[in-house]
């Protein structure tokens, strides 16, 4: 329990009679990179949404650093260090890349905690701009700072989303299908970023592309029909007959 950073204890979520997540107990340890896999409709994203406060579980509890956060609003969880990305890239298309970055940095910046500064001072403060450009540069997109986000490729948007997530000072970073919709080159790029981040804070990845996840995570879990089927090292999990049956078995025979 000592190094457990995030713990879901017997959480259940139902939607109009359909149980999307059923009595799942799962923990994320500080500094580890863990993954959750499962076929479509297995309840992976719902489980993610429960951890991040998008949904409130019908049953069970969620703890963060030993403190119960089951009903804590999502913004409060973010401020405590539970940061997420979305399955469908979620950045602000009407803003420039820099403005997207600013919106996340302002929240963390000490200077903008003053109301006068937040409501009345120009957002284009040189220090803030520099800070944002530096952050964008970590993923090599600083040269696109003045471009409207809608003009970026899907992969670049994904990179921006990750830079934004990192700027929120995460203690646990939850990546919801980070490789969805990306080209092999882009997948390679994002994988390298995740590998570089490993160990700095806890990372939990929900993914459909199992081959990519196996290379990245230390621990893998399988969710099927809302229930946790198997958990262990990636090597152990992919050899588990139950996992083969519920996941690859179905895919291969189809």
């Amino acid at each position: 329990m000592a190094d457990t950073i995030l713990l879901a204890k017997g959480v259940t979520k139902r939607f109009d009679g359909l149980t999307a997540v059923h009595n799942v107990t799962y923990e994320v340890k500080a500094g580890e990179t863990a993954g959750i896999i499962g076929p479509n409709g297995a309840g992976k994203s719902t489980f993610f949404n429960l951890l991040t406060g998008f949904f409130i579980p019908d049953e069970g509890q969620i703890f963060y650093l030993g403190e119960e956060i089951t009903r804590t609003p999502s913004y409060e969880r973010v401020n405590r260090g539970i940061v997420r990305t979305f399955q469908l890239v979620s950045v602000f298309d009407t803003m420039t890349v820099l403005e997207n970055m600013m919106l996340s940095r302002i929240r963390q910046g000490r200077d903008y905690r003053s109301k006068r500064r937040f409501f009345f001072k120009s957002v284009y403060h040189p220090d803030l701009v520099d800070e944002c450009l530096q952050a964008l540069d970590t993923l090599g997109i600083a040269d696109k700072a003045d471009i409207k986000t809608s003009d970026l490729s899907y992969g670049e948007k994904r990179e921006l989303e990750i830079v934004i997530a990192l700027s929120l000072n995460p203690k646990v970073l939850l990546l919801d299908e980070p490789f969805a919709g990306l080209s092999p080159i882009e997948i390679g790029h994002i994988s390298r970023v995740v590998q570089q981040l490993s160990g700095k804070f806890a990372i939990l990845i929900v993914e459909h592309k199992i081959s990519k996840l196996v290379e990245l995570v230390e621990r893998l879990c399988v969710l099927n029909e809302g229930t946790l089927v198997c958990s262990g090292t990636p090597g152990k999990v992919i050899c588990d007959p139950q996992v083969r049956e519920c996941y690859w078995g179905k895919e291969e025979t189809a």
Partner: protein
Amino acid sequence: MRMIKRLERSPTLILAVITAGFIIFGYSTSILKITDFIIFCIYVLGYDLLYGHMGRLSFGHMLYLGAGAYGTALCAKYLSSNVFLAILCGILFGAAIGGILGPILIRTKGACFALLNLAFNQVGHFLVLVPLAKITGGEDGISLHFTGYRFLDFSNIHQLFFLSLISLILVAFLIIKFTHSPYGILLKGIKENETRVNFLGYNTYRYKLITFVLSTTIAAFAGALTTLNYNYANPSFIDPHRSVEVIFATLMGGAGSVLGAVIGGAAFMTISNYLPRYILRWEMFLGLALLIIAFKFRKGIWGYIREI
């Protein structure tokens, strides 16, 4: 094109253009009428903060204008003859109504938000007309006579014109400051994807409430000035049927910009004041204009000029 970009980037230039525009417009036509235009533009600016910047369309914003108008009139009639105290009362009354209804309204969005505002507007209109008729004067409203304050004389149309113009410049300045600040970017974010803003660590409920109350306060300020301008407050100032006027003006000028709001406000008032001289059923023209805007100029007059 370069001039337009320069204008947009310089708040001082924007305020100078608005001031010069209204002074020229006022002294070349009718000061009394243009004072009315200016007050309406303040109302449009307040509405645009809610709709243009935060993306919440309200069908009942006349309630807040009416609250300011009646707050001012009631204060002047029953409490004090001090004009500025009466205006302050009107503004505070509008802010209070926003503060009371806001926590209910801002939990909703889309059609629900628009219609709930309309429902509250109708309740307010009914209260003024029937149950509170003894205080509000019912259909007749409240007639007043504002004498002035020290060296200021509000029966002088020129002084009233400049008071309204200074008020418009102040509100426009405040909104420019807001929209260029981190708060402005936050509003942009809420308009596009509120959930995402939540997941950046912002309590969006708080900022939506602040914006809603600011919008109602500005509308109430416009209401207070309307009472001062007309020397009366009557139920037409809180009539829900007139809520469409501010929506029309915002769309016409171009939502989400100070210049768009002012252009829209001035254009709407020009149409509604001057067109009836030539076309008896001018409202039909208004409907046609709205159709043209909806299909051809979705970003309004200012939006169109910017993109030329």
